[in-house]
């Protein structure tokens, strides 16, 4: 449940963002990470950006997630 997913902020209006991970796009908020900017890579958990993350770390995590067959459903998943 505490797994966060790296994604890139592709739209940002105030604290409302649209994020992208491997072509999956969904809505998220940057309320908890006020310094986040358009184009930043962030960790998303339960619909919120919680940390900045570098490109290399994000790629490693995406590779890991890609192994999980159900990735289509995990864009914003927080299943326990």
């Amino acid at each position: 449940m505490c797994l966060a997913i790296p994604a890139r902020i592709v739209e940002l209006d105030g604290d409302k963002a649209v994020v992208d991970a491997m072509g999956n796009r969904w809505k998220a908020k940057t309320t908890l990470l006020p310094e986040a900017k358009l184009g930043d890579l962030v960790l998303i958990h339960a619909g919120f950006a919680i940390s900045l993350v570098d490109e290399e770390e994000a790629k490693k995590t995406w590779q890991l997630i890609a192994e999980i067959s159900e990735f289509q459903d995990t864009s914003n998943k927080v299943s326990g």
Partner: protein
Amino acid sequence: MKQNTRNMLDRIYKAQNLMDAACEALGRQINIMEVCGTHTVSIFRNGIRSILPKNLKLLSGPGCPVCVTDQGYIDTVLQLADRDDCLIATYGDMIRVPGKDRSLETKQAKANVKVVLSSEDALQLAKDNTEKIVVFVAVGFETTAPATAVVVREAAAGSIDNFCILSGHKLVVPAMRALLSGKNHNINAFLCPGHVSVIIGYGAFAEIVEDFGRPCVVAGFEPVQIIEGLCEICRQLSAGKAKLKSIYSAVVTEKGNTAAQQTIDECFEPVDGYWRGLGKIEKSTLKLRDKYSRFDAFERFNITETPGEERKGCRCGEVLCGLIEPPECGLFGQNCTPQEPVGPCMVSSEGACAAWFKYGQEKRRKR
């Protein structure tokens, strides 16, 4: 072979060799507890247990939010789901946890239980269903709590009065303290959670190292990081040291996400709370502060949280404390399976019992 794959394998072999040497030098059984469901799953999925030295045992501790949630809380959610004026908004895995005589899944047929992916979705549900009181089943550790806090603030600002939360949010460090304060524990060190630490910072575990003399190492979720984390712990133990260390520097800092911490602190206060297996732990559960009490489902429906009884034969509590391994439970694999779970550790995909059931069979046969 790609260069980075080769580098990763080199790191794994190096850590494995160092870990083997440290454990051989120790010459006694050591137990390391992971306190994160995602670590548990990664350890099993990647077969990490199969490469560990013989005298090193991993214990899956109270790191899965669904698993640590007390039965009394589950039964409260089910009672609220019975009310025609309520709409229950919950993260997916909670719906299959059995209560006294049923689970939310059976209630879902009544269409008053909705699975949400975020706290924002739960608030939106309240905006879209003004004739109902939307109760958000707010479980999870420090990673998840700030997301709940934000929507409570939004509900207050927008006067969305048909929204409330049943806070079962838990704090990791008080649980670790409780485990180490128990008489029968056998924990030599902790592999600390990665994404909880993004929020609270690795510095939060300093008190465990100082007060209990147990090594605490924060690691990410890749196999190489987990093995390096375990290696670091073994080397500390072998050198007779207990230190705090993070090897997840890509996202974890000493102080953590202060904006998220302030958000939690502004909305919640830590109170005594019940945990499955661990009982009542001082200042371990987050309760909404008085100024937000109208969004507190406990207040709104006048519910007093009482500890629930575990279902007959279920030993999830002992599993969560690292006192037994799942196959030692009489129900495991026979009367309790992921298809027909009795306890939450078999329900949640991150539960120790579910991981043992899914990945542990082969290894047990070899023993």
